[in-house]
Each structure stands twice: as structure tokens, then as C-alpha cells.
């Protein structure tokens, strides 16, 4: 599954949660830990917020592939498949750092 997409949707959810109910969540842990992800999904669904529901459905589908009614299911599976076929790595922000010297871009750009 595309980790970048999971992180992006989780980030969108985290922003809404913080703004609407002042709840801060750990975006990276949401993507890495399924139990934590389920807790946050439950929390989000309980809020009954339209924009949040949209992202929650998408995130749940990306994480667990459980929501067959999700409009994202088919698209996501296709994208995920093509991604995995084309490239097994280099899709995450962390992966983009590979091969770059550790002090490159630290305190300077050029």
C-alpha cells in the first residue's frame, strides 16, 4: 500500500481533529500501528463531521481495505498495485533522503 498516501490522508485528518475538537494525534503512528489507527478512526467517526468522515473512510480503506462502499477502494487498489509493480521503494519522504549526504540541506540550500 502506498505509505505516502496513508500519511497524507492521516495528516488531513489530524488537522481537522486539532481544529475542530482540539485533539492532537500522531500521524506517523497512525500509519504504523493498526490498533492506534482503529482508535483514531473510531474517534473520527464519532465526531459526525462530513469532511472528516470523507477522509476517515479513505484512511480506513487504505489501512484495512475494509470499506467496500468507499469510492476510493477501487482507485486505491489500482494505484497501490501499480506503485508496487513499478517501484517497491522511493515513494516515501524518508526514502527520498537515500543517497543524500547527512548534512546536505542542513542550514543551507546551495
Amino acid at each position, binding site marked *: 500500500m502506498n505509505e505516502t498516501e496513508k500519511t497524507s490522508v492521516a495528516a488531513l485528518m489530524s488537522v481537522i481533529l486539532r481544529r475542530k475538537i482540539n485533539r492532537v494525534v500522531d500521524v506517523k503512528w497512525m500509519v504504523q500501528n493498526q490498533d492506534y489507527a482503529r482508535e483514531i478512526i473510531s474517534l473520527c467517526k464519532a465526531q459526525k463531521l462530513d469532511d472528516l468522515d470523507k477522509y476517515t473512510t479513505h484512511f480506513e480503506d487504505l489501512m484495512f481495505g475494509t470499506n467496500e462502499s468507499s469510492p476510493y477502494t477501487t482507485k486505491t487498489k489500482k494505484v497501490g498495485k501499480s506503485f508496487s509493480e513499478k517501484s517497491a521503494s522511493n515513494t516515501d519522504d524518508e526514502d527520498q533522503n537515500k543517497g543524500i549526504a547527512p548534512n546536505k540541506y*542542513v*542550514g543551507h*540550500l546551495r
Partner: protein
Amino acid sequence: MSATFAIADANPANVQPSNSTEAAANTSLSASAPATTQANAPEITPKNNTLIPVALPTKPYTVRFEQISAGDTAWMMVSTALVLLMTIPGLVLFYAGMVRKKNVLSTALQSFVVCCLVSVIWVCIGYTLAFTPGSTSFLGGFDRAMLSGLSYIKATSELSVSHLAPSIPESVFVMFQMTFAIITPALIVGAFAERMRFIAMIIFMSLWSVIVYAPVAHWVWEPSGWLAMSGVLDFAGGTVVHINAGAAGLVCAYMLGPRTGYGKVPFIPYNLVYTLVGASLLWVGWFGFNAGSAVAADGRAGMAMLVTQTATATAALTWMAIEWLRKSRITMLGAASGAVAGLVAITPASGFVDVKGALSIGLAAGIFCYWGATGLKQLLKADDALDVFGIHGIGGIVGAILTGVFASKTIGGVEGNVTLQALAACSTLVYSAIVSWLILLFVDFIVGLRVDAEEEDDGLDLTQHSERVL
């Protein structure tokens, strides 16, 4: 083009023709030159079969359609489009590629919005403050506020022209100068990238455009401006655009403070291909910027184009050579940065220097701007995110001073004065820095300059615009 006027040029210091042939054409007054329709327009008075020139106009006036040069007008309309291309999408891509993924959209949007904002401000108040004579030599008047008086009257075959560009319609001159007014504040965006509130950016840019850009343009380019009257040379905006933006950028960087994690964690550029595409668009657009500043499709515009290409390539090669010597690697970002440095440095000199001068200016730009973006940046301890001061500020200063060294009387009709050039550079630097600081204090007081730490961590794309690059 009417032979009545000395030369059509954005810079009043450039009022000498570019070569002897054109000099003869431009200075010999033709009895058949159509009379202008306003009292302040130049007239030719036959007296004992000799033609006596009268004073050149000092403010916009009205002429008949026949006095407009189709060639000049066509070139200036193309130049205007080229200079606009430098900002959208040139600068947008150049900057967007260098910021982190979470701030790409906000950085791109900032330059885009500056374009919209300054366009409106320019027609309302900016143009009149910059390009009409005022009661002092420091600021223009209000004659053209809301562009009142700018005319195109089909019934009488008359239209208005600027006294700075008598061979093209004033509407084209307004547009051409508008694109300069747009790109100057848009350059500053790179200094405060990734941390400024969007609303604060809008207020700052609006005020800066009126209080800083317009006066400085008046000083240098309007014949009644105090630097113009002193004989300062700035063909296409090394001082007005680049030193001005560089100084403001540096102040912004200090006022906003460094980005969270600056100097501790790497800030990975999103996509440097965008940056190279942006730099290439800037390069192409710069022909409109420099050659267009001749405000005529003539030999001097051709020289400006030639030296622009020469200096840019030289600076890019110089930057790459320094990188090779220092790091044993040549980077794409370095090559693009070197090219932009060369473009910046040749800007004030482009209508005054020959190819030898261009090679020298390109070489100096590569060396000094490399230092500006690396060594000087460390010394200044400001998080000038995309090196606006290091490249535009330093490049502008190098270009301004070297214009004084390499200006050729054969090409520009005037000789340079290094002291004067340095005075103009320092005056602009100080004025821009102080007034920018005051504007930032005001904006900070009313809306706050910087996003909070959490919003910065999430990225401006999400927190300011609810969008994100996936």
C-alpha cells in the same frame, strides 16, 4: 518611430542613442515629424530655415496614432509577456521546487497572488507614484491615479504616451512596467518561505509595493527622480528590482526568524526539476526584461539581449567551476543558481556594456553570488530560505557597481561612475531595509507574521490552504 525624441528608454539616464547611426537618426530633428497635441509636447520651430529643438516632455502626453511605432509596440508587447512569464510560471516553479513537499502549494500560490495583487495596485496608484513627476524628487505625483488621463481616442486618432517611451502607447508602457512591479515583491517570497501567514503576506506585499517599490522606481527611472538626476545607471532594474527585493528579503528573514529545525535537520527540496524549469523560464523571460528595457526594437535592444545571454552563461559556468573545486561535484541547483546570478548582475548593465563587460560581470556574479548563498549566508545567520539576498541582493550590488566600471559610451552614450552606482545601491538597500522592517512591524501588530509551530510542522499547504501535494 518619430525622430523628434532622443531615445525611448525606461531609464532617463539612458537617453543617448546606442550607436552613431542611431544617434544621427535620433538627434536630427525632422520637420515632417507630426506635431503633438499637448502643450508640454516637444515642438519644432522653423526659424530662418533652421530647426530649433525645444525641451523634451517631462510627463505623459498625447500624440497622434501615426507617431506610434508599430515595431516598437509589437516588441514591447512581446517583452511584457516575457517578463510576466518570469513570475508566472517561472518564479513560481523556481521557488516551488526548492521548498519542502508540505509547502510547495503555498509557495507557488504566494507568487501567483502577488501577481494579482500588484496588478491592481499598479493601475490604481503604483504607476503614477513611480512614473509621473511629483512635487519632490523622491515620489511621483497623482496625475495618473487610477490611470486617469491615459487615453486612446479612436475618433480623433489620438492616444497618450509616456514621456519615457514616446514611440509606444502608454497602455503598453504601463503594462510593461507593471510586470517589473510584480516580479520584485514576488522575489521576496523566497526569503520568508515555509513560515509566513498568508494574510500577513498579502498585507505586507500590498504596502511594500506602494511604499517601497514605487518610490525607488521613481528615484531611479523617472527623469525627475533624485538618483536619475544624479546620473545613476540602471538599465533594467538591478537596483530597483534586485537590490530592493534582496534587502527586503533579508529583513523578512530576520523578522520572521528561522524555520523550526533550521540548521539541525535537512530541508529536502521537493523537486529540483521544477527549479530548473523555472530557472529556464526566467532566463528566456529575461530577454524581455533586459532587451525590452530599451523600449524600442533597435540595436541597443539587440546588444542588451546579447550581453544577457553571455553574462548568464558565464555566471552559470563559474558557479559550476567553484562547486567542482570546492565539492568535487556539480549540482543542478548550482547551475540554475549561477544562471540566475548572471541574469541579475547583467540587468543594470545590459544597455551599457559590451561583450567583454558581460563576460566580466558574469564571472564576478558567479563568484560573489556563490559566496552570498553560502559563506555570507552563514555569517548573516538569517534563514533566508531560498537565498533571495545571497543571489538577488548580492548580484544586484555586483551588477550595479560593475555597470559603473564597464559602461561604454559607445553603446549607452554615457560613462559609468562607480561612486554614484555605489551610492544608489546603498540608498536603495538602506531605504528598502528600513521601510520593510517598519511594514513588517505593522503587519505583525495587526495580524501576526508567522504561523504557529504546529501549523509550520504540518506545512502551510494544509494549514493555510487545506490542500496538499500527494
